């Protein structure tokens, strides 16, 4: 990137530094993803319908009595299965849009650090996932008669979603190159993201059953460490993942 700073600016080019162009490119990708999705509503509606169907399927498949429905272990488990499955659908679609119309090449041709593209896609995917979660939580609360408006649980959902999307976006960028991308992404993603799901389910259960903070803290720490490590790894390897 030092070359960027040494080279002569072209007409109308911003002369702000490396961080400025990184942030501008990152938020351009976020703006582009959100604007396109606001118009088409393909991704959100697919994720949402899928999430609601999973809630219904679990409702019938588990055939739980009213008391068991409010069990924190069951609530946390079902919630994270919904988030993970719906999230996978969104991750696949988000990268497929770039690949199918050749737009990924358009992004890669921009003279910016390619990790700006990665973080832009991560933020966009995270927004979509959080939107689905915001809609799913009250519906789940209503159907299963359980109070999910717990600040601790919401923090776990945020941290878990960040970890899931950070890894998922990187692996989706890899999987989208393959013809079998739809089945390849879950196969690649689920084993890698297992620590996030485990920590998220344990921490969610802890907050729902009112456990002591010292019991929950190790799981929260695991989520935070996972988020940081995988964001850093993706920052370093994304350039190689997307290059031919």
């Amino acid at each position, binding site marked *: *990137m030092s*070359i*960027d700073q*040494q*080279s002569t600016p*072209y*007409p*109308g*080019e*911003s*002369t*702000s530094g490396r961080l*400025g*162009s990184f942030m*501008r*490119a990152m*938020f*351009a*990708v976020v*703006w*582009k993803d959100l*604007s*396109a*999705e606001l*118009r*088409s509503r393909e991704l959100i509606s697919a994720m949402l319908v899928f999430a609601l169907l999973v809630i219904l399927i679990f409702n019938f498949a588990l055939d739980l009595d009213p008391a068991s429905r409010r069990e924190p272990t069951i609530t946390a488990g079902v919630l994270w299965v919904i988030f993970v499955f719906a999230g996978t659908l969104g991750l696949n679609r988000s990268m497929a*849009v770039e690949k199918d*119309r*050749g*737009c990924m*090449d*358009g*992004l*890669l*041709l*921009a*003279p*910016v*650090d390619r990790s700006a593209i990665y973080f832009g896609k991560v933020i966009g995917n995270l927004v979509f996932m959080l939107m689905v979660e915001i809609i799913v939580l009250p519906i789940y609360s209503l159907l299963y008669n359980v109070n999910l408006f717990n600040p601790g649980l919401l923090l776990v959902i945020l941290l878990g979603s960040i970890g899931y999307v950070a890894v998922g976006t990187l692996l989706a960028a890899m999987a989208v190159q393959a013809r079998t991308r739809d089945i390849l992404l879950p196969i690649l993603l689920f084993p890698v993201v297992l620590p996030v799901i485990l920590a998220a389910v344990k921490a969610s259960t802890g907050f729902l059953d009112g456990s002591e903070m010292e019991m929950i803290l190790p799981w929260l720490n695991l989520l935070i460490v996972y988020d940081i490590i995988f964001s850093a790894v993706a920052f370093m390897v994304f350039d190689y993942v997307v*290059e*031919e």
Partner: protein
Amino acid sequence: MISVRKLIKRFGLKTVLRGLDFEVEQGEFVALLGPNGAGKTTFLRILASLSRPSMGGVKIAGYRLPDQAAAVRRRLGVVSHQPLLYGDLTAEENLKFYGRMYSINTLDARVKEVLDLVGLTARRRDLVRTFSRGMQQRLAIGRAVLHDPDVMLFDEPHTGLDQDASAMLDTVLREVAARGRTVVMTSHDLARAADLASRFDVISRGVIGASVRRDEIDPNDLLAFYRGALQES
């Protein structure tokens, strides 16, 4: 402006480019001709920094690839047979998005200027997915010239266009070349290449088999020159 030395590109066991040498001066319009599978698109993707060379040296505007790829990308405009545009954004939004990716400060003015250049001002607020193939390709050229690049790469830009759309694209291509940009265009269409380019290079079996300038050949002899180059390689 472009200097390529002994370029080799392998995909696994298959060698697509076999020690290709290529030189282009500033302001030249080079038509890169060749049959399917000759390595034209692979070569263009390497010039565009979308693919890494297996061996050999590539320099564009004095910058080496792949080490100085970001500096090269800043000076490149690329148009392929895919428009690289987002169907759910308007023409204006697509250009503004790419303008932000290139950190263009005076973006609104530049987008307006480019929409005028490609003749899409009246459709600037329409979604790109409602555009015909020809209009999408014109907007793709607008996207590629937005940051005023020194070098333009066109990969079979006429693919899928009807006669009218191709003629309109030719007009835009001539305007791009008239502004002194260096242009490399791959094409199967010899007549169209003869009409636009100032130099014709034939790529075959991963090397440049022959090269001739427009003032050295009668355009009617281009087909014979092309066939001769393929037979010799």
